[in-house]
């Protein structure tokens, strides 16, 4: 008897079952645990319980949230409590034997940029981090999801988590993406279609020719925002692109082990005919550069659209929430998005701070001048180094953009003090346009790196396709 075809998610899940209880709960093994400067909470719980890290060799850490963007010197962090957290990750990892990419090491950066870049993230693995955007790592065909502090402590102590199996959902994007349309536009279009709660309780597999055609960088951007669609995780099946990407990365297997690993990775993708609990599809050719107008990532529209009219809302509750969002965002219904003036630009975050993102932004910036303040924060020291080797820093500087010194989360969440001013309108390549995300009263619009650069050089939202012409 043959078993029914399995999804990639199902296969990875099954391979990691330590204990299956008859009440529907599974003790799931965690292959890789990423840590950052917020992981002190997990270590504190371990200390309180007098427990040791079970598998320090499976842990990798890098400071990102509280790191300053203008200095790689810890002593410069003005807030004593924040500075302490960045110190603690150094002390904690040294004491426990976890690999650390610390400040001063060119491998330091945002955990979700560093993991794939170092080859820590691999197909078929389970990977967790005390951060919701851990979904990013699914781009390489891993089952990766964010966890809370208590669960971080549990993984530290046991390398396992109690989980109930989520459902599987497939989002297929088929066809060719137009010029100037990027992975960020794809994921914003998906979230606009299915909603911010559209994938709650599900692991999303992104499939279809447009996804296949994306580089690993692009797939990382798509999977990154799975959480903004409510998904537990997002994944893309590993293929030649994935294997070529991993080849030679420091923590990828070598020699005979590499061949063994590749053979295993080839078996990870969903089998033909595997059943998904839900299926959604989008036409790639219909996707255009996107901009969010409201305070939820689902509030995304094509740049060619106008600010929506609350009177067209399907019900009273939706109308109320649209009015509240428009009021916070200081927008007038009916205004063409291209007429909305922008005060500031942020290019960075675990969504869009990789080399391709910087190249796409630089291509738009080249030979033009920013008319509003625009920051570029590389996702890791290695991304920064690569960009500088390609002269992108010079392109940005010549165009009046600010090339920030130190990789990290920076203005994505502003925990390091990089925030906007109340009322400021920011075109941001990050993933959350929540009220106050970039500082109290700040108005965040999510866009791709190319669209962010277009906003920087025109002072308003601009269809980047015209600038690329």
């Amino acid at each position, binding site marked *: 008897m043959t078993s029914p075809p399995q999804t990639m998610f199902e296969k990875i899940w099954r391979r990691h079952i*330590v*204990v299956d*209880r008859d*009440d*529907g*709960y599974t*003790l799931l*093994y965690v292959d*890789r645990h990423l840590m950052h400067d*917020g992981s002190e909470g997990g270590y504190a*719980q371990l200390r309180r319980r007098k427990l040791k890290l*079970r*598998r*320090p*060799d*499976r842990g990798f850490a890098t400071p990102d949230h*509280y790191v300053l963007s203008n200095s790689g010197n810890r002593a410069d962090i003005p807030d004593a409590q*924040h500075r302490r*957290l960045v110190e603690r990750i150094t002390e904690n990892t040294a004491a426990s*034997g976890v690999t650390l990419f610390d400040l001063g090491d060119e491998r330091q950066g945002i955990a979700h940029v560093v993991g794939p870049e170092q080859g820590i993230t691999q197909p078929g*693995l389970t990977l967790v981090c005390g951060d*919701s955007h*851990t979904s990013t790592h699914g781009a390489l065909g891993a089952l990766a999801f*964010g*966890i*809370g*502090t*208590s*669960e971080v*402590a*549990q993984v530290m*102590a*046991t390398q*396992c988590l*109690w989980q*109930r199996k989520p459902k599987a959902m497939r989002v297929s994007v088929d066809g060719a993406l137009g010029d100037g349309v990027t992975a960020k536009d794809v994921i914003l279009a998906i979230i606009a279609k299915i909603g*911010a*709660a559209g994938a*709650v309780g599900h692991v999303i597999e992104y499939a279809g020719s447009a996804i296949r055609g994306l580089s690993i960088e692009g797939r990382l951007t798509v999977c990154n925002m799975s*959480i903004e669609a*409510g998904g*537990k995780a997002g994944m893309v099946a590993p293929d030649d692109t994935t294997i070529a990407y991993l080849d030679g990365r420091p923590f990828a*297997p070598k020699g005979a*082990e590499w061949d*063994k*690993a590749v053979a*295993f990775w080839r078996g990870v993708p969903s089998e033909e005919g595997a059943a998904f609990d839900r299926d959604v599809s989008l036409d790639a050719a219909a996707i255009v550069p996107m901009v969010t107008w409201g305070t939820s990532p*689902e509030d995304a529209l094509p740049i060619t659209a106008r600010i929506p009219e609350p009177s067209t809302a399907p019900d009273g*509750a939706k109308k*109320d*929430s649209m009015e509240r969002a428009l009021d916070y965002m200081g927008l007038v219904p009916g205004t063409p998005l291209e007429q909305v003036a922008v005060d500031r630009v942020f290019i960075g975050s675990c969504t869009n701070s990789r080399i391709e993102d910087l190249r796409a932004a630089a291509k738009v910036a080249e030979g033009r001048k920013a008319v509003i303040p625009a920051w570029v924060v590389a996702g890791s020291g290695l991304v920064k180094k690569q960009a500088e080797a390609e002269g992108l820093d010079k392109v940005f500087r010549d165009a009046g953009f600010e090339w920030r010194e130190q990789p990290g989360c920076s203005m994505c*969440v*502003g*925990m390091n003090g990089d925030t906007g001013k109340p009322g400021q309108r920011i075109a941001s390549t990050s993933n*959350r346009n*929540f*009220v*106050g*995300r970039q500082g109290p*009263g700040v108005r965040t619009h999510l866009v791709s790196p190319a669209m962010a650069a277009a906003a920087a050089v025109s002072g308003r939202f601009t269809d980047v396709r015209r600038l690329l012409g």
Partner: protein
Amino acid sequence: MEPFTTLEAPAIPIDQPNVDTDQIIPARFLGRPRPDQAKHLFNDLRYDADGKPRSEFIMNRPGYEGARIVVAERNFACGSSRETAVTVMVDNGLKAFIAPSFGDIFFNNCFQNGALPIRLDAARVAELRAQLRDRPGTAIAIDLAKQTVTGPDGKTDRFEIDSFRKDCLLKGVDEVNLTLGYEADIAAFEARQHQEMGWLDGRR
């Protein structure tokens, strides 16, 4: 962990959908000790830039002071993984959450802190919110063993919860200790995986 069995207490309605954890506790308060954070529950919704209470926010309206239950809209507490979104609620006495749906990570984090997230049908949740708005300070009764929620109107609904989560909450079981009890299974898994995927194992 303190067990959760029954709770009969005043409840507070939150009408907006997609309330994210940045609203529950803004990121700028995260790097602080837990007792400091409690003051900042819903900080930017509760207080204006000068620190004055915003009268329009439900928590600042009379009658909701003693609330221990939140009745929310869909996708409640979506967004970041910050467990502070749960602890800051618990530290303000809010130990049960009723909504049509939740952010996944918040939902899981509740169980690590003796708090109970309850999914109920959207229409019933809307009804409960309306009753709480009409009569601030009225109570909702939750019985975890029986898996029931009784609203201000006396109507009782049954909710679903995994028996694993239910047991842990009722007994106040600590998941880390529970998991440590499976040491032999974990070690066996690791030995097996080492045979198949040795490249994952580094210095030990």
